[in-house]
């Protein structure tokens, strides 16, 4: 049973930026897999329910507003869960727990970074988006500017972010389902692509949101159960849990403090910036603020989401320590421990390093240890549902950028008929599904772990600066936003490509052109300074128009006057 899920680890690796790259994946482990029936049955039930929802949603998805925003009919609480669902990826669940398992306290440092973007979203972005936008964040970023250049920029920022995120998720999902079903990778990736196309094309935002809500509830429930079981075993005493973990872990008491995750402060701050501000620039997250009826519901939904996500991250810390104590320390003699790879134990590896499938499997083994085989099946099905839900959200955000921003606004100059725009959005969803399958196949044997990190860096260096400055700085002009935004986008991509991970490990060059993998500390200022400088130097007639439009935008942004009818709710 345990060996069946070996490569769940890959799913986590692909979704976890930076830290996961150190770990290796034993690709040979997946060649021959036994069939995991509990996991398959639970996954099939999940798919059945979500397809039912999609059928129900499809009948309500007749207008563009219904497709992009579920007609604005999602409540603050529901949206809070959906946002949490979008954000609690396999990376958080498998990756962070695995990080706690391997290094203890370092996992908590990572969790903190993933959470602190949410207050920023609440304070600076959520209500502004709701008041100014209709379907995509480009609506807000281009509100008072020349449509063609700014929509093009925002759509590029969205699509590049979505593409990198999508590749990482597809490869992870492919490997995951391959283990669960014993199917070839190709089939696995196609199943994910097809389900994603069905959810998005037929059910639009309504189906995508409910898939996300169901998965978030299951994930929070499953994690709560595991953390509770761990705490019960240790009499609700953190000291007893820590003692058991410290006794068994080869790093001993060092797991109670910061370890090797953060080596130099520049990288630490840079990673922190990407996680913090990237969150406020992810197109599939930003889209969620258009699904609620007003600014009040928007802010409420981020508050709930922050609570759910923060709670979840605290659970990952407990689960990680629980896994050290109950998995690595399952038996006094490592040679009798069913959760360890006995070949590695025989080779002299310690109990932490010898875990079957690598440290990212820790939470799956823990599920088996505290809840038995059926609970393991349940958690495995959730892990896969997590990836499927995130992939659907990404596809919807990508399809919206193509149909609403590129087709309707750039290509048709805002004169597209709604029916045509809908048709394009559905064609785009199908095309993105095919593209995702193609990319999943192309990147099967590539190291894709850096791609989520890159997606966050791009979101923080292109989408976020343009969005923030357009809302708060009167002086920004079309030219400034266009040049600054593209500078941020290009510098983030260029710096990541020339850094140690991609340049050396992926492309096989001898030495990196620059020493940093975490680049937001450089690319974010480049974007902001670029926007500021090129706006300042811009004396065109368009620039005067841009600045003159600020006041009307600002009044709507602050009061919501004029926003109510914008999404035809």
């Amino acid at each position, binding site marked *: 049973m345990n060996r069946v899920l070996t490569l769940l680890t890959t799913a986590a690796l692909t979704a976890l930026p930076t830290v996961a790259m150190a770990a290796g994946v034993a690709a040979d482990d997946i060649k021959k897999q036994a069939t995991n029936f509990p996991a398959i049955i639970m996954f099939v039930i999940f798919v059945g329910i979500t397809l039912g929802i999609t059928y129900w949603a499809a009948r309500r998805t007749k207008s563009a507003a219904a497709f992009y925003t579920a007609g604005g009919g999602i409540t603050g609480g529901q949206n809070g869960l959906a946002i949490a669902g979008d954000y609690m990826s396999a990376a958080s669940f498998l990756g962070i727990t695995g990080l706690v398992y391997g290094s203890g306290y370092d996992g908590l440092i990572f969790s903190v970074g993933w959470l602190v973007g949410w*207050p920023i979203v*609440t304070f600076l972005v959520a209500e502004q988006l709701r008041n100014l936008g209709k379907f995509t964040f480009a609506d807000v970023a281009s509100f008072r500017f020349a449509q063609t250049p700014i929509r093009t920029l925002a759509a590029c920022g969205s699509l590049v972010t979505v593409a990198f995120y999508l590749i990482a998720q597809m490869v992870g999902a492919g490997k995951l389902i391959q283990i669960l079903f014993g199917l070839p990778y190709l089939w696995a990736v196609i199943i994910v692509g097809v389900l994603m196309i069905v959810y998005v094309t037929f059910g639009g935002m309504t189906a995508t949101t409910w898939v996300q809500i169901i998965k978030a509830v299951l994930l929070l429930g499953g994690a709560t159960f595991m953390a509770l079981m761990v705490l019960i075993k240790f009499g609700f005493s953190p000291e007893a849990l820590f003692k058991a973990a*410290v006794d068994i872990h080869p790093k001993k008491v060092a797991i109670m403090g910061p370890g090797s995750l953060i080596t*130099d*402060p520049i990288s630490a701050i840079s990673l922190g910036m990407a996680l913090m501000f990237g969150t406020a620039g992810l197109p599939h997250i930003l889209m969620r603020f258009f699904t609620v009826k007003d600014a009040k519901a928007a802010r409420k939904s981020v508050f709930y989401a922050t609570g759910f996500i*923060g709670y979840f991250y605290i659970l990952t810390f407990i689960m990680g320590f629980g896994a050290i104590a109950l998995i690595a320390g399952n038996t006094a003699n490592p040679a009798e421990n069913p959760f360890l790879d006995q070949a590695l134990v025989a080779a002299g590896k310690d109990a932490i390093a010898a875990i079957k499938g690598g440290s990212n499997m820790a939470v799956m083994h823990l599920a088996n240890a505290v809840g038995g085989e059926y609970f393991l099946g349940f958690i495995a099905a959730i892990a896969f549902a997590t990836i499927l839900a995130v992939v659907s959200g990404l596809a919807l955000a990508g399809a919206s950028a193509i149909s609403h921003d590129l087709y309707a606004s750039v290509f048709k100059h805002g004169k597209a008929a709604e029916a045509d725009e809908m048709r394009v959005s559905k064609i785009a969803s199908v095309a993105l599904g095919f593209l995702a399958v193609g990319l999943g196949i192309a990147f099967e044997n590539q190291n894709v772990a850096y791609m989520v990190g890159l997606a966050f860096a791009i979101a923080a260096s292109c989408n976020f600066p343009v969005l923030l400055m357009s809302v708060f700085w009167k002086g920004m002009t079309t030219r400034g936003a266009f040049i600054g935004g593209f500078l941020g986008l290009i510098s983030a991509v260029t710096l990541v490509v020339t850094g140690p991970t991609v340049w050396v490990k992926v492309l096989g060059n001898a030495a990196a052109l620059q020493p940093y993998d975490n680049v937001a500390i450089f690319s974010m200022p480049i974007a902001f300074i670029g926007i500021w400088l090129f706006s300042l130097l811009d004396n065109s007639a368009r620039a005067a128009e841009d600045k003159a439009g600020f006041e009307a935008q600002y009044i709507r942004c*602050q*009061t919501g006057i004029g926003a109510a009818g914008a999404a035809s709710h």
Partner: protein
Amino acid sequence: MSTDIIINKVRSNPKFAELVHKRNSLAFSLTIAVLVLYFGFILLVGYAKGFLATPIGSNLMTFGVPIGIGVIVGAFVLTGIYVRKANAEFDTLTAQIVEETK
């Protein structure tokens, strides 16, 4: 009503200035608070690893654990402060401005 008239009405309403001032100063000060909280934590991780790894009393629990969890809880609480204030005060002001603009 034309857009220009609405803009003029809202702009000349002293409550609009009050709303913008109050909301922006709260949002920006809370943003700074989160930045200080988080990057303060990251700087501790970068430069004061020893402090975070110091046990509290004779326990295994180190200062780092409550501090790390505290940053998560703190971020949630700061979000809550904003939402509470916005629900009570800013929404009332906004509703009044909208009403007086009609």
